[in-house]
């Protein structure tokens, strides 16, 4: 085994030997399943009752301005669930500082950049698993409920499967953004507060505010949450656009690159300001 594959194995072992990942995954599944199931029932109910079921599947006539219902529900996996992989990455990283496990980690492998690289890749993979779990909740539960109201869940549509694939990618990147944030902040409490305040309050407010003028709207597209929605290709957030016109997001690949840029910036700065510092 090369030293990098050993480092990667150790990072997977760290994740696998504590309860953090499955507790977070379980809470995420429940949260998304509840939202996706509840809102599917609400919207599909309106749609199937008010309009003929044939028209519902095409979406655009069904919920004017809302976009098609199934992709909207399915995208909850990332648009609502992304905070969970961020927390996973952040807690996995700040835990090393909090429990002083950086000492044995760096004793076993003094190549610190390699350790951080291995941690990022391990969290990318587990973040992708979180994406799959989140989709089991949003698509699994959502499609069942939508189907129950005789609305087409669009599961045979290739666009749906493209959305599912890009959601897995988005969740994986979010997990590595968590690692970058954790290295940057290295205080567990502070990083949890930052993640929750930013994702649940600050960013939604900024995105909403940015929609009022064309200039700020362009800037708002580069906020991490907006970039993530662009990557996935659907978001309930666009429902909130003032004047009823959904905000034009970046192209999906642009959104992906913006997310990667956030991850790289946080990780590289975090490496310089805390990861390679003295461990006392």
């Amino acid at each position, binding site marked *: 085994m090369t030293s990098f594959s*050993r480092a990667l194995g*150790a990072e997977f072992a760290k994740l696998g030997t504590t309860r953090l990942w499955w507790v977070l995954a379980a809470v995420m599944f429940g949260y998304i399943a509840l939202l996706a199931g509840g809102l599917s029932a609400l919207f599909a109910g309106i749609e199937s009752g008010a309009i003929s079921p044939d028209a519902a599947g095409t979406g655009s006539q069904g919920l004017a301005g809302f976009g098609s219902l199934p992709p909207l529900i399915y995208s909850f996996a990332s648009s609502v669930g992304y905070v969970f992989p961020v927390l996973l990455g952040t807690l996995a990283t700040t835990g090393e500082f909090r429990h002083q496990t950086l000492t*044995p980690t*760096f004793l*076993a492998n003094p190549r610190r950049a390699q350790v951080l690289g291995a941690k990022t890749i391990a969290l990318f993979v587990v973040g992708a698993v979180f994406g799959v779990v989140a989709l089991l909740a949003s698509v699994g539960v959502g499609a069942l409920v939508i189907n129950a109201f005789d609305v087409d869940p669009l599961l045979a549509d290739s666009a749906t499967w493209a959305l599912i694939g890009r959601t897995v990618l988005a969740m994986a990147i979010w997990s590595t953004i968590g690692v970058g944030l954790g290295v940057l902040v290295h205080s567990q409490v502070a990083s949890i507060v930052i993640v929750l305040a930013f994702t649940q309050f600050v960013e939604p407010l900024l995105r909403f505010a940015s929609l009022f003028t064309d200039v700020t709207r362009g800037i708002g597209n580069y906020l991490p949450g907006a970039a993530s929605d662009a990557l996935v290709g659907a978001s309930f957030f666009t429902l909130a656009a003032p004047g009823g016109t959904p905000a034009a997001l970046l192209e999906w690949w642009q959104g992906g690159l913006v997310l990667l840029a956030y991850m790289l910036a946080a990780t590289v700065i975090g490496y310089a300001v805390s990861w390679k510092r*003295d461990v*006392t």
Partner: protein
Amino acid sequence: MPVGAVIEFSNITKTFGNVTAVDNLSFTVEPGRVTGFLGPNGAGKTTTLRMLLGLVAPTSGTATIDGIRYRDLPRPLQTVGAALEAASFHPGRSARNHLAVYAIAAGLPSARIDAVLHTVGLGAHGAQRVGGFSLGMRQRLGLAFTLLGDPGVLVLDEPINGLDPEGIKWIRGFLRTMADEGRTVLVSSHLLSEVQQSVDDVIIIADGALVHRGTLSSLETEAAPRILVDSPDRTALEAALSQAGIEFSTGRTGLFAAAPDPALIGHIAFSAGVELSALHRERKGLEEAFLALVNGHANGNGGESR
């Protein structure tokens, strides 16, 4: 059998802002011996050890193992085993999984995990979460981590802290065995009495600077030693000592004579025809010598000239 290597500190200095934690320290640690690294709390012992292990970057100078910096060791855990003072465990991980993480990182077979858990007496607690461990059990798990790679060099920071008497006895035997097998054993403590039964050599620092290095017995003769002497006729003894020009003070159990050799005092008494009831080196000599060195430095009497 792992081979011990020479640890060498060369003009190593560490400053934190305006504070000099370690001040131009140079010494070597030899294989096959137990070396005590002593000094009061805050003397810079832990910082020095962390510099050796690549965890803290020296401001200047180098620390090497067999001539190689820790960060450049091709197989660090197989070369150096370290147990540092801070409890570095995730409380939710079992003892076995804690070791497994680092065994994987170092490319060690998982059979080593059971072997070292057994060695430190935690064989029955491998599946238990570390969060429920007592301080003594954590110390033992820390030692298990040091032994994981069967290294030739052991670096232990305050390993006796928090151990019960049985544990202390065990670790003394453990240190001896490791050194007798040819390993290099460097063990820090703020109490000489804690390690004096186990160490061959001592390195003493105070305020980040070296104040003494040598064998344990060299410590005894370096600091002005005192001889405890007593007689049924103490007045005659006092007169004899005064006449011979030996300074002394009167203690509860006899006279403390400022002389290097008990034979000299015996000769003086014999010549004066004074009967002796006690004649030996002061028993607490080592600890007092240690404290004198450390305090002498703190009072400005020691320093780099030593």
